[in-house]
C-alpha cells in the first residue's frame, strides 16, 4: 500500500491537512522551528516523513530552517518549512536567496496577530504584504490562501506544483483559524492527484542552470548528479557566474519578476459566488471567506444583492478577476484581518471611492451579522 497518499475521508485539522498535502505532493524534507500556531504541522511531519523515507529536522531557528530547505531542494528533494509571523520575518533573508537562485520550495505561514510577538494563539492576516515584499530587492513570489481544511491539502499540493514549474518559493498563507480548524478532509486516490515533478536537464554539455527568458524557466540539475552546478546569491549570468554589470542586473531582475508576471493568468485562482447580478461584491480570502459566504447567503434571503469574490491566490495579485467583478458592481467591500493590506491592491484596480473596508485586527472573525450591518450602513 502507498504510505504517501493516505486516501480516505478524515475529520482533521488544517495544519495536518497541509502536512498530508505536502507529502502527497512529494515533499520529503521538512526543516522547521517550533512556533504557535504552526507547530502541529511540524509535529505531524516529524511523525510522517520517516514513514515515506523522508527527513524531518528541527533547526535552531527559522534562518536555519529556510537555509536548510534550500539546501535540500538543490540536492533534488522537494522541501518545505512552516512557521508563523515572527519566524516568517526571520525567513525573509533566505526567501530572497531562494528567489535569486530559482529554488523550488514551499513556506507555510500560519498567520497570527502581530506586530512582534503579538497574539501567538489567535488568528490574523497581517503578513500579506510581508509575503509580497518582505525580502529586500525586486522580486515576485507566489502566495496561496486556503480557507478550509480541504484547501489546506489541495493548495499545498498546488504550491509544490507551482514551485517546481516556475522555480520559485511559494508561500501557503494560512491563518490560525484554518490551521486549527477541524473539519472534513477527503484525500483522493493517488492517481487523481496531479503532481509536477522537477524537470531535469538532458545533457551536461551546454547546461545553463539559470535563465533570462521568462518563457523558458530552465530545468534544474541538482548536487550529486554530475553537473557541477554553482549557484550564488550574487547577481549572475545564465551559467551562474557572478556579474555586476548593469546589463546583467537588468536582465536578471526582469526575468525573476517576469517569469511570474507573464504567467499570472496561469497561476491565479479565485471563486465567485453570486456576483453576476450583485450591487456589492465582498472581496476576501482565508478564514473570513467562511463568514463572508454566510453573510452573502443570509443577505440574499433578505433581498440584498450581494456577492463574493474569494481570492485563493494573493500573489501574483489576480488583477483581472478583481477588475471584472468591480466593473459589474457598484461597490466593493474588502474584508481582511488586518488594517488594510489587500485593500490597497483592490483600490488600485477598482479605484478609490468605490471600495469599502471592514477590518478586524486579529483573533475574531467578521461575524455574518456584523458584515450585513456594515453593508446596510454602506449605502447611506
Amino acid at each position, binding site marked *: 500500500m502507498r504510505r504517501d497518499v493516505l486516501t480516505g475521508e478524515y475529520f482533521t485539522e488544517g495544519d495536518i491537512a497541509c502536512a498530508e498535502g505536502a507529502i502527497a505532493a512529494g515533499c520529503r524534507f521538512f526543516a522547521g522551528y517550533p512556533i504557535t500556531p504552526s507547530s502541529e504541522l511540524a509535529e505531524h511531519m516529524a511523525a510522517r516523513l520517516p514513514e515515506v523515507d523522508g527527513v524531518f529536522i528541527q533547526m535552531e531557528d527559522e534562518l536555519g530552517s529556510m537555509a536548510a530547505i534550500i*539546501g535540500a531542494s538543490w540536492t533534488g528533494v522537494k522541501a518545505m518549512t512552516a512557521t508563523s509571523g515572527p519566524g516568517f520575518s526571520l525567513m525573509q533573508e533566505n526567501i530572497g536567496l531562494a528567489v535569486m537562485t530559482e529554488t523550488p520550495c514551499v513556506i507555510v505561514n500560519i498567520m497570527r496577530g502581530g506586530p512582534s510577538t503579538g497574539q501567538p494563539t489567535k488568528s490574523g492576516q497581517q503578513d500579506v504584504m510581508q509575503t509580497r515584499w518582505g525580502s529586500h530587492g525586486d522580486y515576485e513570489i507566489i502566495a496561496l490562501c486556503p480557507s478550509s481544511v480541504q484547501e489546506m491539502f489541495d493548495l499545498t499540493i498546488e504550491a509544490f506544483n507551482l514551485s517546481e514549474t516556475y522555480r520559485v518559493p511559494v508561500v501557503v498563507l494560512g491563518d490560525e483559524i484554518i490551521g486549527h480548524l477541524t473539519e472534513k478532509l477527503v484525500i483522493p486516490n493517488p492517481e487523481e492527484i496531479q503532481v509536477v515533478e522537477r524537470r531535469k536537464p538532458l545533457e551536461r554539455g551546454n547546461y545553463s542552470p539559470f535563465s533570462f527568458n521568462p518563457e523558458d524557466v530552465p530545468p534544474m540539475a541538482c548536487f550529486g548528479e554530475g553537473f557541477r552546478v554553482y549557484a550564488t546569491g*550574487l547577481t549572475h549570468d545564465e551559467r551562474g557566474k557572478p556579474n555586476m554589470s548593469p546589463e546583467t542586473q537588468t536582465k536578471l531582475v526582469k526575468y525573476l519578476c517576469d517569469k511570474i508576471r507573464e504567467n499570472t493568468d496561469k497561476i491565479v485562482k479565485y471563486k465567485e459566488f453570486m456576483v453576476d447580478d450583485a450591487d456589492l461584491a465582498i472581496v476576501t480570502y482565508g478564514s473570513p471567506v467562511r463568514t463572508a459566504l454566510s453573510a452573502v447567503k443570509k443577505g440574499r434571503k433578505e433581498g440584498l444583492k450581494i456577492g463574493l469574490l474569494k481570492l485563493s491566490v494573493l500573489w501574483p495579485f489576480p488583477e483581472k478577476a478583481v477588475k471584472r467583478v468591480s466593473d459589474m458592481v457598484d461597490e466593493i467591500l474588502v474584508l481582511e484581518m488586518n488594517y488594510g493590506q489587500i485593500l490597497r491592491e483592490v483600490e488600485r484596480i477598482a479605484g478609490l471611492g468605490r471600495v469599502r473596508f471592514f477590518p478586524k485586527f486579529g483573533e475574531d472573525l467578521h461575524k455574518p451579522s456584523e458584515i450585513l450591518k456594515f453593508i446596510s450602513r454602506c449605502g447611506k
Partner: protein
Amino acid sequence: MNGLIEAGVTHPLDKYLRREMIPHIWCTGCGNGVLLNCFIRALRELNLDMDKIVVVSGIGCIGRISGYVNLDSFHTTHGRPIAFATGVKLANPELQVVVISGDGDLFAIGGNHFIHAARRNMDLLVICANNFNYGMTGGQYGPTTPLTARTMTSPYGNIEHPFNLVHLAWASGAVYVARWTAVHVTRLTESIKKALGKKGFRFIEVITPCPEIYGRYNRMGNALEIMKWLRENSVIQHFTDPSKVDIEIGRKIVVGEFVDKEKPVFTDLIADLKRKVKDRLEAESKRTLTKI
C-alpha cells in the same frame, strides 16, 4: 596566466578549478589561495569522486571559494552555509559536504548554526579561514579579532574578547578539531585529508594572512613578512587542552590536532530511525491518519 591557458599549458590541479571563474578576487598575499590549494590537493591525493563532493560557502572574501572549485557548490547568504549544508547532507547522505567560510560568517552572524550542527554531530567538514577581521567590508573587528588589535571599527584597539575557536568547537561537540596556519601547507593538507576520511562534525581553523587590510592596520609588514611571522610565532602542540589555546597578541599561536574521537553521527541516527519506523509499519496492516 591567461597566456598560459591559451598556449594550452595545463596543471595537474586544473580539473579541480572552474577556469571561467579565474582570476580570483583575492588580494596578493591573501591566505585564501593557500587554503584553496591545500583543499584541492587533498581531494586529488584522496582521489575522491568529484561528482559526490559539495562545497558550500557564506559571504566574505573566502565565500568566493565555492565559485572557484569545479564541484557542485553554493554561495549562500551571510552566516548560513552550515544550515544550507545541513539540508544538502540530509537530502543525500552519500555526498561529502564541506563548508568553507570565514570567521565572521561562521562565528558572528552564523555562530548559532555552528554550535548546533556540532551538537547534533551533523556529518559536515567545516573549514574556517580566520583572518581576524572582516576583510571584504574593509577591515572591521570580528569575533576572532585579538584584544588590542586595530581595525577600522576598533581604531583605539579592540576591547572585545575573541573566541577561542578550538575550544568552542570542542565544547560544542565536534569529533575532529584542528588548527593550522597558511604556512603549514603540508600539515593542513594532511589534516583536510584526515578530516575527509572521518564522519561527523569536523572542524579545521586555518589562520590566514590578510596583508592588505588587517596586516596593514596592525603594521605586520608585507605578505612574506606575515608568513615568516606566522612560522616563527606558531607552535605545534597536538592535543593541548582546548581551553588553553586562546590566540593573544604577544603569545605563540598553538596549532595542531586537538580532538579526534568518534560518536554517533546524525545521518546514521536518522537512518536507524527510518529503519525502526519501517519495521513498525510492516508489522501494521493499514496506516491511516486517525492512528497518529
